[in-house]
């Protein structure tokens, strides 16, 4: 389990706190890294920039990616990840406040593994996040390493 981590890309600090609370309460919060914009996400994943030579596994088990991000949007980050051989198969879940049809469609087109809308109601939100964490860290089998 310790081997596996989750990368949360979220610029909203309150959403981050609530997400982390939900994951903690579901007991999957042991290894969660958080970055706050698209560029940071890419640097983290490719171990570039400020994340060059970071410790821990090369890639997380799943990336929880918001769409509305500063600098690079979530969809752009997804596009870059899918264009790079190292991250082409990395599981990415779009976790967003938007329920726009267009965002959903674009996410899948760009190779998102899942699209999840953050419920406004906190109870629903906490539940959803807990299920996500359990599923991607426990249930889902990651693609084999090269």
């Amino acid at each position: 389990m310790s081997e596996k981590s989750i990368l949360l890309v979220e610029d909203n600090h309150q959403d981050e706190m609530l997400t982390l609370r939900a994951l903690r309460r579901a007991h999957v919060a042991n290894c969660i890294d958080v970055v706050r914009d698209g560029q940071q996400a890419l640097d983290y994943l490719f171990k570039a920039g400020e994340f060059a030579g970071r410790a821990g596994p090369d890639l997380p088990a799943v990336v929880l990616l918001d769409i509305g991000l500063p600098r690079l949007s979530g969809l752009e980050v997804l596009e870059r990840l899918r264009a790079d051989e190292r991250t082409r198969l990395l599981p990415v879940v779009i976790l967003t406040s938007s329920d726009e049809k267009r965002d959903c469609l674009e996410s899948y087109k760009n190779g998102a593994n899942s699209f999840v809308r953050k419920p406004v109601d906190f109870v629903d939100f906490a539940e959803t996040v807990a299920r996500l964490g359990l599923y991607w860290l426990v249930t889902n089998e990651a693609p084999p390493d090269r």
Partner: protein
Amino acid sequence: MTPDSPAATPPGVTGAVGPGPAVFAAATVAIGGLAFLGWWLDITSFKSLFSDAVSMKANTALAFILAGIALWLLHPGRVGTAARRVGLACAAAVAGLGLLTLTEYLLGVDFAIDNRLIPEPPGAPLTSHPGRMAPGTAMNFCLTGLALLLLGRNGSGRWQPAPYLVLPTFGIAFVALLGYLYDLDALYGPAHFTAMAVHTAAAFFILALGILMARPRWGWMASITAATSGGALLRCLLPAILLLVPLLFYLWMTGERLGLVPARYSLFLMILAIMALLTAAAWWGAIVVDRAEMNWLQAVAAYGQLNTTMQEKAASEARFAGLFQETPVPLCCVDKRGVLTDRNLRFDQTFGYGRDELRTLDDWWRLAYPDPARRAQVLDSWNEVLAESAHRSADLAPREYDITCKDGGVRTMLVSGILLGDDFIAAFFDITERSKATRDLKEARLAALNRMEDANAARRQAETGADRIRLLAEAVERIAAVHDLPSLMAVVRPAVRRLTGADGATLVLNDNGYCFYADEDAIGPLWKGQRFPLESCISGWAMLHGQAAVIEDIYADERIPHEAYRPTFVKSLAMVPIGRSGPVAAIGAYWATRHKPTDEEVELQQALADAMSIGLANIDLIQNLERRVEQRTAELSTVNRELESFAYAVSHDLRAPLRAMSGFSQALQEDFGAQLTGEARVYLEQIGIASRRMGELIEGLLTLSRSTRGELQRDRVDFSALAERRLDELAAAEPGRRVAVSVEDGLVVQGDARMLAAVMTNLVDNAWKYTGKAAAASIRVHAEIRDGRRWYCVADNGAGFDMAHAARLFQPFQRLHRQDEFPGIGIGLVTVQRIIHRHGGEIVAAAAPDQGATFCFTLPEDGLSDKEILP
């Protein structure tokens, strides 16, 4: 025909009768003179030619001298009364001498005249009375003297006595001469009387001949000298008989006397000779007569011809004179000096100029053309005619002149000249009336022609006018329908030719100071695609002046650049501007044969141009509109994009803080609920309520915004199913409520499924919500037909509302109920109305407080069959 009239004497038959009387007179005087000289000088041989021959007495010689003088002075060739008197005196003396001597013989008396001059001695041979002339001589002097006296008489005729008087003289002298020839003394000297000397006889012969020759037409001489065949015969035969016969007889006698010819044959020879002579004479006479007759016949013929010619000439002259005078045309004769030699009555009557004032051509010019300038012109014209006439050797060609008459009137005359040698006759034909008549006729004919042309034009117009108007109307209609320049030109191009009947048409655009020949339709190439400066071509002229240019002969018009037209077929054209003020184009019509474009053609062309100008304006307008639509569309899509990003922001960014509020209040309650007091929990609950309400507002706004953007889908929408499912959900959410629900089956429409679902959900939710306090709530979803349209209705018996506030129903965030009565955000009906409107439908509400409300809407039925609507 008078024989004595010289004019009547045929030519060539004049009496050629020998030498004139002067010769005879001279001979007579010479013989007498010689004899008298002999007496004077006593030369015997002068007195008597031979010895022993009788002498010519002195008296006789003197008488011959006088007779000769008389003959010379009295013959008709002489003139002068003095000579005539001397001649008459001489003649009277001769006759008197003869008469006295004869009286002496007859009465045997002696008047002592015989030897008065020069006495003759007695014993002279053959002389009975010395110095006295022979009785025959005296007789002869008597006769010849008388004849000479009568010779001076005037008149003529066969009965003049002179020739008859000399006839015995001839006979006596002739016989005497024969006597001497044949030596027969009885012939020249009657017994016992003095004989006649031989030269006396000869002198008488000559004298008598002289007298006869002096008057060759008198008495019997007329027969001899006549130019007739008889005369000719006489002139031929008489010498033969009177001279040759005696000569033959003399030869015969001489021969016999000398014994040259035997006596037996001499008479025969004589007779033979006479026969030969007579035969020859007769023959000769016949020839002469024939010749004379031939001459005569010719002469007669010639004379006849001449006579006829002369008569004809005379008659012709008479006729000409009559004609000249009487001709009812003014005539005048002008000779080569320019003098008017004659003029006829009509000339005088017509012009009225007197003969004194009008003598020469110069007078004529001055009188007939009083205006000097006009006169100079007329003189030029006249000289031209003269030169032409001289050049062609023809009469003077007729020309028209306006001639001023004496009375001041001006008459139009056609003047021609007839050449007669060096003269000419001018003839004046009065065409004043004719000219006037011609002018009148011309005017009348013109008027008639005009009327005919008008009539024709009217007919043509009636025939073609309707066609052309129809063509024009069609063209205008099509012009109105086109939206771009190429289509417009394609419509106008052929219409110009059909309307005007031209052989070619061009469309010229004003292209920044150049005429651009944008399009053409013609029998031969014109200038399509070319550009010319506005100032240098006719289309430019039409555009700059804003008026039509109609040109019948383009090569006679300065506005036309001729070089540009030479390669083309164009002879005539009409160019009209398009747009009357500040034209932007022009339409040209061209003809291959010279043609004057009619007003009608030009008007039609102009009408077409006006239509085209409207067409151009339309194109402008349409293109403007299209541009504006594009602009609006662009603006709208910008707004749409802004709206979308706003909606996105609302849906994404507003939810996060809301989630944070509700999330942290929830977390506070869960994590620290045990430490909170009752009042703190109430506050936390209020935060949760506000968060939920905020969430609903956000949801409503998102729905509203989505209802006005995005493509409308064409889906099959089943209202019945939608309503039932929603009512089921509501009933499940509030199981405690008892609501009578009635949903009509088969309410199926075409439209955007997601939007129409929102409509049905909103209406049903409202009905559910507002029947919440009703005792026996009922909700009914059904369709009904009103005003021929199908209305879909959701009716309830809930709280209803006052229709006075109905206007606020469809305003966003406006509510008719308090939150504590019926919570809501006031966005549902606004969304419903927008969706219905976007579908092209209509929505109405009917309600009363506590009596419920009914919302009905329509949707366009296109694409929906009745079967689908009414199962």
